[in-house]
């Protein structure tokens, strides 16, 4: 199994997982590899490492994908037959553009963008990155300019925040609960009846009057736009659930990310989202020899020399601990996955931050099963 097989007939690939597991790099590799195979691909990243961004020619936050100069990719070992496009998401701008798009006229859009509640909402608040990432994905999908969109999800502590946060914001923007409080003549108030009086009073006392009136103004401005917003949210959800979307779970082989991956796999299943497979980064392959082997100290002493040999042995024992750890963590994940695909990428000697680095990862993710066995033999032999 490899990435092209996992992404066959898919238009959207969402790379998700907990923080610090190599999501951005993996997204870039997937986009590069699929472009090399002939597709027109756009990768939407959130916060790439500076050197990786430079390698892709992403010097600044830009809200439109830009084609990566083929010369940058021409390193000899991989011919790019299609096109690679990349963009770095600017959440604030995406949010503004969203308002521009669904506002009935430019004046209303400007008023909303000047509202204090909106300004908080579109910048400081957790969830705005998640929401705007999905909004951008949907917009690009609607334009239909690309064969494949690869989305690198924002770094949240908990992978589930990605789905939770847009939902929370959408609920807020739809403002159902709030409108019930704020509109004395609204349906909500009639349903609530007299019970809402003390609630409203308590709310004022706790939040401060101005917050309520700011919110009220905000929702007054949003007005009928919330319908547009809801309709859009439903379409976005339909896209995420469609069988042309693939969720790829990215993890490292450490215990916590693996726990999270297991939990996340279950959550995807429970919510009926299309799961494609797992990529495990930074895997320490077992080098095939026991550090406790009886003859090793004397053999090392002979080949390397006494004192250096002892340090090599000590390091080998430490490495072995990590390879055992990784193997047992991946086994746990496999218990959850059953026959679902899992691709291993080894722990390289240096960080991946340029096109050569991407190509190093690419070999593992795009290799056939036989090629991969050969590659791993190279690592462990």
């Amino acid at each position, binding site marked *: 199994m490899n990435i092209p097989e996992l992404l066959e007939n898919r238009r959207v690939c969402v790379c998700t997982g907990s*923080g*610090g597991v190599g999501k951005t790099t993996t997204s870039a590799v997937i986009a590069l590899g699929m472009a090399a195979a002939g597709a027109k691909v756009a990768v939407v990243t959130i916060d790439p*490492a*500076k050197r990786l961004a430079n390698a892709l020619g992403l010097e600044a936050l830009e809200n439109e994908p830009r084609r990566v100069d083929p010369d940058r990719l021409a390193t000899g070992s991989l011919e790019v037959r299609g096109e690679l496009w990349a963009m770095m998401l600017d959440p604030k701008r995406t949010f503004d553009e969203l308002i521009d798009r669904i506002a009935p006229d430019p004046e209303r859009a400007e008023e909303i963008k000047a509202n204090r*509640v909106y300004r*908080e909402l579109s910048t*400081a*608040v*957790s*969830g705005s990155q998640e929401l705007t990432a999905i909004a951008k994905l949907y917009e690009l999908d609607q334009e239909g300019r690309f064969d494949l969109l690869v989305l690198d999800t924002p*770094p*949240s*502590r*908990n992978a589930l925040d990605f789905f939770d946060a847009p939902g929370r*914001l959408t*609920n*807020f923007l739809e403002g*159902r*609960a*709030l409108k*019930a409080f704020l509109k004395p003549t609204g349906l909500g108030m009639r349903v*609530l009846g007299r019970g809402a009086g*003390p*609630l409203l009073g*308590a*709310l004022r*006392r*706790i*939040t*401060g*009057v*101005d*917050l309520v009136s700011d919110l009220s103004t905000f929702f007054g401005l949003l007005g009928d736009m919330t319908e547009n917003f809801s309709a859009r949210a439903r379409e976005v959800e339909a896209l995420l659930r469609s069988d042309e979307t693939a969720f790829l779970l990215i993890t490292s082989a450490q215990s916590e*990310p693996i726990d999270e991956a297991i939990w996340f796999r279950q959550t995807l299943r429970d919510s009926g989202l299309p799961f494609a497979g797992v990529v495990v980064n930074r895997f320490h392959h077992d*080098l*095939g*020899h026991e*550090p406790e*082997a009886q003859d090793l100290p004397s*053999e*090392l002493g002979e*080949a*390397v*020399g006494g004192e*250096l040999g002892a*340090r*090599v042995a000590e*390091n*080998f024992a*430490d*490495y072995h*601990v990590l390879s*055992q*750890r990784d193997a*047992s963590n991946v086994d746990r994940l496999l218990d959850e996955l059953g026959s679902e695909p899992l691709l291993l990428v080894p722990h390289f*000697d*240096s*960080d991946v*931050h340029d096109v050569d680095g991407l190509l190093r990862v690419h070999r593992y993710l795009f290799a056939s099963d036989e090629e991969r066995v050969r590659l791993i033999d190279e690592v*462990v032999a």
Partner: protein
Amino acid sequence: MSPLLQRRLIFVTGKGGVGKSTVALALGLLAARRGLRTIVAELAAGEHLQRAFAQQEGRQFEEIELAPGLFTISIDPQHAMEEYLRVKTGPVGQALGHSRLFHAFAMATPGMRELLSIGKVWELAQFERRTREAEPYDVVIVDAPATGHGVGILRTPRTFAEIARVGPIAHQGGQIARTIADRSFTAVLAVSTPEEMPVNETLSLYEALLAEGLDLDTVILNARYPDRFDDADASRLRAVLEADPPPPVRAAVRAGLSEQARAATQAEQHARLEELFPGRVSTLPFVFAPDIGRPELEGLADRLAEVLP
């Protein structure tokens, strides 16, 4: 004692995956050893702090004693809100706490979850606890969310104080914001690994803190490989490989060369961090163990005792 542990409130921040929870717990162990009644508060629903100490699940939103003098709590905004309403607003609050509409409203209000979480942290750090019969803590260590949100959570109280202007939220927001800005009370610590992205993120955290009128007290460089081999060793090892050694020797030597390369990359980022934060970097070693459990945390606490300024 380290001046760091003389603050009552210590925020541990950093990019995802750098070992914030590990550092927060090791620091908590160290504080408890010094006789300080300490609590490590995790700002997200999750139970992995307690897992390191093999605690049972199901009590995660309560204060649980992990080791003598060391407590932990996982702060959940919803739970914090119910508690706040119960204590602050009496019967009306209790009715509100049970109102589904009110929940939906409060949880959907931008920043409200953050405010409720930090409000609970602040409550833990008070000499006189809000919740009746609760004993005060000497040190509250906050295992903050991944950096971007971590700064958000430090900024939230002030934002609310400004937006609401009047009323209890504005009052409380202002009070919490002043506590956070008081450097004799609050410390902010960043955790980084010796890799490019986490170091970048530490720098942007620092800039964001300065913009808020806050500062970074200490940077913990976590998971640093030992510098076991120098360049001469590496040349020697490469020569050994070329001489076609027996397979087990080959495997061990290759593992050695890999680590030498990784340690060299780490040394570059380590130097960068030292240059960015002269005199403020404390280093913790990479832990070669299947999992970070109690013994490993005790070891890291030993090390913190040596390296913390």
